[in-house]
């Protein structure tokens, strides 16, 4: 729970205070920086699904617990999807906590009550996608320590996105280019659109599209990697 919920809340508190002056930049889409940044907080918590799912699976591989499961009627793919179910539950709880804290501290959801549900839905999609990436990492490496390194990687990528500033207001060209090509920017912007713009079909499609793509590729890879890993016992 600490990396999935406490740490993102901690970051939210710091960013909301430190970035408050950013709303004075001409063209900034909202006067409430916490409203602006909470979208990325939700994504930050979701990205941590990588570590949660990956470490759990890697730990089970290391101890041989996976073998115990595979000696029952349970199939490999069911084992993988079951891990995601647990991660999704953590992600759901996290989403509710973040939104609740945000609402308490003045976050306004432009898309209304439906937008709150959509926020949770997009976040869950991202949680599952990054959970699948974590499973892929675990299946490939079989090491909980190596999977944990993925969190640092994705956190770094998140800071190299439009997490702290809209892409059109980023003045450094190199940073803007990275943020533009960084898929995490679109995940953040999907959430942010619900908070600031209302119902933005393009932003939602891009964000959800990337999440679904990550999920499909990672899960397919995880299934094959698990099969190959079990052959190397």
């Amino acid at each position: 729970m600490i990396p999935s919920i406490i740490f993102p809340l901690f970051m939210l508190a710091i960013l909301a205070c430190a970035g408050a002056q950013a709303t004075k930049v001409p063209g900034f889409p909202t006067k409430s920086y916490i409203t602006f940044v909470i979208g990325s907080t939700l994504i930050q918590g979701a990205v941590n699904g990588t570590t949660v799912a990956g470490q759990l699976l890697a730990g089970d591989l290391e101890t041989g617990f996976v073998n115990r499961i595979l000696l029952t009627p349970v199939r490999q793919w069911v084992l993988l999807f079951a891990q995601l179910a647990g991660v999704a539950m953590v992600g759901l709880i996290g989403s509710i906590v973040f939104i609740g804290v945000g609402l308490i501290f003045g976050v306004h959801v432009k898309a209304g009550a439906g937008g709150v549900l959509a926020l949770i839905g997009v976040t869950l999609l991202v949680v599952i996608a990054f959970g699948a990436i974590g499973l892929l990492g675990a299946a490939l490496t079989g090491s909980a320590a190596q999977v944990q390194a993925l969190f640092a990687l994705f956190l770094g990528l998140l800071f190299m996105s439009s997490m702290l500033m809209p892409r059109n207001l980023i003045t450094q060209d190199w940073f803007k280019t990275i943020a533009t090509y960084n898929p995490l920017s679109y995940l953040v912007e999907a959430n942010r659109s619900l908070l600031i713009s209302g119902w933005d079909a393009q932003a939602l499609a891009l964000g959800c599209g990337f999440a679904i793509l990550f999920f499909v590729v990672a899960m397919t890879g995880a299934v094959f990697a698990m099969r190959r890993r079990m052959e190397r016992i």
Partner: protein
Amino acid sequence: MSNSVAIVSGAEVGREFTVGEVLLVGRGPDADVVISESDVSARHAELSPNGDGIAIVDLGSTNGTFVNGERVVKTRQLGVGDRIQIGGTVLEVRSNTPAASDVKLGPPGLEVTRVRQIPTVPTLRFDSGPLAGTTVPVGSQVVVGRDPATADVLLEGDTDVSRRHAVFSPAGEGMTVQDLGSTNGTFVNGRRIPAYAVALANGNQVQIGDSVIEVMISAPLVVAPPAAPAPAQAPPSQAPNSIEVIGLVKQFGTHRAVDGINLHVDPAEIYGFLGPNGAGKSTTVHMLTTLLPPSGGTARIAGFDVAKQGARVRATIGVALQAAALDAQLNSWEHMDLQMSLQGVPKSERSKRKTELIERVGLTYAADRRVGGYSGGMKRRLDLALALVHRPRVLFLDEPTTGLDPQSRTALWEEVARLVKEEGMTVFLTTQYLEEADVLADRVGIIDKGEIVAEDTPARLKAEIGRPTLEVDPAEGEDWSAVGSVLERFGELASAQHQGVAVRLRPGVEGLADVIRALDAAGLRVANVELHTPTLDDVFLIKTGHSLEGGGGGSDANAEA
């Protein structure tokens, strides 16, 4: 009359074998046609009559079987004149002519049901040294040494050879060798042999000084009347609790971790699978339990194919792997609940079943505690209970007592024995502990470098390599020759390991009490008595050339080269 095959190139050119029924060709001791070459697998191929000709089946050999230069994929029909190459040996299929070994004996109506090659006297062939090229039949004891007065085979000029170095003796259908207290030792397959007589197998290499001697032992001609019709019963592969493995192979890249093994485990039998680390034990277990797909061969558990009917196999088996994979945060009850849920045990049975199993493994007192606080022995017991939740018919135990204290080990052995005796379970047990195999297993298969090198009951395996030797130290001032005379009544006198008189006990002589009583009756006093019995490690040493205890290397489970 049947077709035959004759060796036309390689060792023993001219030997001919009638193919009246299935003949196993290979390097192993149970082969009908033994080819002692390193390129030949233990169970390399099978020849069988097929219509008017012969069929050959490659049993998953490493280096392949070739007919007229083409590699045999699985099976091939052979005709007269076809040439089979196995290793460096070439055999030719001959037409229906009565081979010298095709003999009918006994009263009219007696059929020859199994024919092997013509019996010959066990022979030694000197491949190097002063007598290179010489063959010596061993129809009676043959002493090898440097003393012209006592040696039957004189190795003159070789200063590494003692005056009376070793003795070869016929033993049943084969022969034994015993070191006679030589200075530089006698070696079989590269390993120095102990003081007592050691049984030799065809193809063994004995080294005495500079001389390397190859052992040549032929299988006997066996003539038997037609067997009485067996009572109707399911074939072994369909017996409810059996394990049947034919030519099982597992290859990781270029490395063959399991190289064409064959084994059969009867229902309600405990089969011990013995071998050092890296031999292929765990890889074999993983294949039999469907965790690993085989690269070749077949395996059936309770009649179900592990490659094609995995789900049915898993429903039939219980498995306790080398690592007792338990969740440290759960207690025993929670583990049982999880396992029963995964195994699909009906909810109405779960409560009673888990209580019964926890009680049976003696964990009731600790069942409420988290497993993270359990000792190694407790974890193993829980692991065994978890393997039994769904009442399997076949139980696989992969080194179940590794790391356990003697008390826990004994408790586990008792539980396993009870499961077999009372519930008729079949148990496949892998271990590197000789004592465990000796005590628990009905039969033992010894695996080394991916091949089964020996398989039989522990008693027969040990008896095959030698009989126990009793060594008596006469008391000071006692008449040694008198002691020797008494001991001779119980077997053949042998070299003593220490200063004393030794006798290799005849089969059937089991009790020391008889010997002691005889010495006492003769009024002879002894200072010490020692009984040296062959161990499974001695069996392993003879079969593989290295010791099991402290031998082997590498990880058995991580078999990638």
